[in-house]
């Protein structure tokens, strides 16, 4: 019953979604909204699981004096300190908002900015001409790079149009093919779950 009950719930939820998405009366009943609300409520409880996991792991690091254990103290202090602060004054409160705007947002931006350097190093590896595919990649990248910068059209008139064509025709075509394939794949996965053939989300090797 440990696996059967979740399986039955999964199939029932799937049928409710189909009924409320495609059928007029299903839509009018608003069952999707009800399911969404149930998910929201049950997933809110799962926040506790996240907090318990964080505390358990980092408390263990502190207790065992694992390398960098003082970082775990900072993490736990921030977790509970910010939690208490937002309960006291809501997330829009002066101190809570100040911390968010002046510490968390710049931190996020710093991490995001790192991507520029990672792109450079990944591009260097990818553009080393070793195979036919890498050569095509390099040629396309050079055309698009120069075509999107003013220098492209300054060198050869119409270079920008070639770059736009690469982006709009082969690139968009390829991406759309991937999206269509992925949509069919997602459907087949959903159908396997509805048939009870795929049970990966219930634990173990994942199949019946």
């Amino acid at each position, binding site marked *: 019953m440990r696996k059967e009950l979740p399986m039955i719930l999964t199939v029932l939820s799937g049928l409710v979604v189909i009924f409320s998405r*495609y059928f007029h009366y299903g839509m009018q009943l608003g069952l999707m909204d009800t399911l969404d609300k149930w998910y929201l409520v049950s997933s809110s409880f799962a926040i506790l699981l996240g907090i318990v996991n964080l505390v358990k792991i980092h408390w263990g690091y502190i207790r065992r004096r694992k390398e960098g254990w003082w970082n775990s103290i900072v993490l736990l202090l921030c977790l509970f300190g910010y939690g208490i602060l937002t309960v006291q004054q809501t997330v829009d409160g002066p101190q809570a908002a100040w911390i968010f705007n002046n510490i968390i947002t710049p*931190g996020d931006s710093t991490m995001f900015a790192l991507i520029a350097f990672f792109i450079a190093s990944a591009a260097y590896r990818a553009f080393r001409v070793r195979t036919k595919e890498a050569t095509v990649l390099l040629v396309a990248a050079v055309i698009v790079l120069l075509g999107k910068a003013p220098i492209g059209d300054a060198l050869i008139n119409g270079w920008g149009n070639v770059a736009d064509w690469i982006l709009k025709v082969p690139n968009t075509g390829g991406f759309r093919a991937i999206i269509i394939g992925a949509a069919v794949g997602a459907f087949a996965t959903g159908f396997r779950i509805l048939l009870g053939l795929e049970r990966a989300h219930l634990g173990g090797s994942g*199949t019946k």
Partner: protein
Amino acid sequence: MLLAAEAAKPYLGVFAEGKFAQFVLMLVFAFIVWFMVTRAKAGMKVPEIRKINGLEALDEAIGRATEMGRPVHFTPGLGGVGNPMTFAAFGFLGYVAKLCAKYDTRLIQTNADYVVLAINEEIIRQAYLEAGRPDAFNSDDVQFMSDQQFAYAANVMNMFQKDKPAANIMMGAFWAESLIFAETASFVGAIQIAGTAATAQLPFFITACDYTLIGEEIYAASAYLSKEPVLYGSLVGQDWAKIFVFALILVGTVIANFQAKGNWLTSILKK
């Protein structure tokens, strides 16, 4: 008022507006997959499916980590349980966890979603149980790091530098953090297998990882890895459904080019 009442009128008295064709297409796809599954169940021959290198390499990656005595890292990305890519990742995780349990290799599994964390912990626990190594399961290695994208990315980067995994497996829904993970893992010398249907992140994975599963390939994983004929059958059905969509696109393209006004296929699909 009258217009609103007209708009809400059900199509054929049953279907929601604009959903009839979608429903029929869903039934067609379901029939194709079901037909192939039934054939496989009856023991009839199911056509071969092509080899997916990224999936074949999973054993190699975990074997390499075992030989080096270093851990394996698995992330399902930032997607929640509502994301089909996360569901696809569950199948991989079960397989990876079972192999890690078998070879006694440490598996570090990081999460950015607390619901996914709970499911992943159960999947890994069950996989260790199935492998006959429940004692080797360490719940501390299934970690929730943060539900904030870049806080999670920073945490994973730190883990890469500290634990130096020999294999990095990334399957699921990824956004801008994809390249941060892939490049940092590359710096520590990890063999990398990635897969996503997020088209914006695929170029990053293809350039930075050793193997990349593109789009639909991630949805084939659990069926492919199970080697069960019935599930293989569903994969063949998936391919036939794709051929059906391709034929539909082809017909639509021909009509769009030769029919000057209106496209009857588009009108049917909008019903």
